[in-house]
């Protein structure tokens, strides 16, 4: 069954605004990852947060993880038109197999 669910499914903002996407999952995890997918392209790894971490930053990205609520959020600050893409969370919970369970993604549109 699908592990991750993302909210909202679609988000439209103006350039310069912040974008927040949420992800919920069902079982315990080793880590949670966020990926970006531009239209017609493959997924690009953005950031990984381990199950014992609560917050992580990378440039304009901030990820939080709440294992008690089985949820994570991705915040993109000062968004740019180039941030327009779909964003997916993926959970790794199956030991040393590398198996990732993806959410259905949030489609972000940043208007110039």
């Amino acid at each position, binding site marked *: 069954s*699908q592990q991750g669910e993302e909210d909202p499914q679609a988000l439209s903002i103006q350039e310069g605004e912040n974008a927040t996407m949420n992800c919920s999952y069902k079982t315990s995890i080793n880590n949670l990852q966020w990926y970006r997918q531009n239209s017609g392209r*493959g*997924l690009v790894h953005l950031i*990984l947060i381990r199950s014992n971490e609560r917050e992580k930053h990378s440039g304009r990205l901030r990820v939080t993880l709440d294992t008690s609520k089985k949820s994570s959020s991705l915040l993109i600050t000062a968004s740019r038109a180039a941030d327009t893409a*779909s964003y997916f969370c993926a959970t790794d919970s199956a030991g040393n*197999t*590398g198996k*990732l369970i993806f959410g259905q993604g949030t489609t972000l549109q940043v208007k110039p």
Partner: protein
Amino acid sequence: DTAVSQTPKYLVTQMGNDKSIKCEQNLGHDTMYWYKQDSKKFLKIMFSYNNKELIINETVPNRFSPKSPDKAHLNLHINSLELGDSAVYFCASSQVVGPPQHFGDGTRLSIL
């Protein structure tokens, strides 16, 4: 230089045909994966290989057969194509069995 390359990018064929999708990575990674992304962007893992050995085999019809001739290649052969096989198929690789995964740009398979 393309890190993970898939060929062909588009594949249009008729029901009942047999087709193959090729994947090559020049990153020196040990692990490779196949994913299927449906029309709702739901991404699900199908197979993964580590050092040419199968480590993940999800509930995928026997019509799908992965083949890894060496660590840099993981091809996907599909027999007796069905309408439900229409999707975008992504190949990915990782240095070890774990994150991050590097994705190709996908092969869009359309069954007529």
